[in-house]
């Protein structure tokens, strides 16, 4: 596929990509008005319709669209407006041409390097590690370079016991599950009650332990509870059967 075959249908322009490029360079279309992303999408659609990828044309497209993006971003940079930096059409065209020539040149170099590597790959180098006798100091030549006290010091560090862990900042649990079980059973004997009432004026740990106790009693079948909505009031009752029995 040639880029010239890429038909565009943009807000500000309809026609072949090459023509748009020329019009931009001749300032007949304002680059600031052109949606470059739309061009990229058109190009991808185009490739999909063709079902084949011409690397040559694709590379050229990438180089051109990247250059246009850079030119456009330069135009959009705030502050440069005052300086009235206009895109000189001649210079811009020259810049695009240099880009295309560079891209061609380095693609040729790349091919050369790939061929060179292929030609050279028949030569292999040895990659063995040095034999052990070259990896250590030789005994006859060895001189004292280390201080034995470094070993004793390292040993001293290893003998040091870590300071005992200080747990004083942790709240000591003052409440047990069995104590809260007794509390809940006692309240239940006086009929239905709310969870809030069961944990009035206690700390958070006690609230948590009370909840464990509540779950335990529920599991044992000693009570039931209802809660109409999340975070709503929890009402605790004797189990239905025992209420019927006592009724």
């Amino acid at each position, binding site marked *: 596929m040639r*880029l*010239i075959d890429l038909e565009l249908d943009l807000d500000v*322009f*309809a*026609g*072949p990509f*090459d*023509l*748009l*490029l*020329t*019009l931009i*360079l*001749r300032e*007949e279309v304002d680059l600031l008005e052109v949606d470059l992303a739309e061009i990229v999408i058109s190009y991808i659609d185009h490739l999909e319709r063709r079902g084949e990828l011409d*690397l040559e044309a694709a*590379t050229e497209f*990438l*180089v*051109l*669209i*990247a*250059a246009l993006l*850079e030119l456009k971003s330069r135009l959009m940079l705030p502050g440069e407006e005052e300086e009235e930096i206009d895109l000189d059409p001649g210079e811009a*065209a020259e810049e*695009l*041409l240099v*880009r*295309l*020539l*560079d*891209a*061609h*040149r*380095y*693609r*040729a*170099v*790349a*091919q*050369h*390097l*790939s061929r*060179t*590597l*292929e*030609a*050279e*790959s*028949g*030569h*292999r*180098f*040895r*990659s*063995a590690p*040095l*034999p052990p006798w*070259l990896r250590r100091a030789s005994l006859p030549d060895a001189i004292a370079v280390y201080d034995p006290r470094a070993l004793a010091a390292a040993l001293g560090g290893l003998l040091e016991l870590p300071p005992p862990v200080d747990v004083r900042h942790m709240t000591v649990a003052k409440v047990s599950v069995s104590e809260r079980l007794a509390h809940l059973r006692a309240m239940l004997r006086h009929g239905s009650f709310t969870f809030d009432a069961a944990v009035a004026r206690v700390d958070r740990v006690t609230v948590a332990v009370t909840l464990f106790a509540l779950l335990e009693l529920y599991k044992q079948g000693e009570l039931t509870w209802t809660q109409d909505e999340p975070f709503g009031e929890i009402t605790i009752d004797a189990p239905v059967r025992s209420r019927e029995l006592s009724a």
Partner: protein
Amino acid sequence: MTAELERTIEALLFLSAEPVDAAALADATESDLHEVVTAVERLREHYEFERRGLVLRELAGGYVLATHPDAEPAARRLLARPRTPPLTPAQAETLAIVAYLQPVSRPEIARIRGVNAESAAATLLERGLVEEAGRSQFGAILYRTTDLFLRLFGLRSIDELPDSSEFDPSPEIEAELRDRLMRAGEARAGTG
């Protein structure tokens, strides 16, 4: 019977993973530089004229032993892997730009290629073909080629790369590109 210096140099080159230059060989063998150069040349000729399995090459600024390419098929069967996987087009382009423009920054590479060079540059770094070479004045990491690059591409130094003008697009291509940019559109201007 092989001369003492030649056999010692053979052993040293066998042990060295990297190319060794003549001065280092002279130091290690306690010989004069010109004796070393003569002995290296005799060693090279021995491999070549006797058609040994090894060759002596001058690469990346020093001497290094390598296998003769005739052994490559057997080496591939024994070692079960190609020695140097070929470069992808993106890697080859990135490497070409680094080789000729070094030190060169990643944004510059991307600018020439029209696409981001992240992944190709990362692979080249990982394969040890390029390395970081400080930062540009704008803070971008600069890249240059490594000694391993020279070795794998059979070069004594980076100066042995062909002149980049050899790869200039032909005048016809240049004219065509210029045409594409200016005149082709101009002819149809107003029809769009």
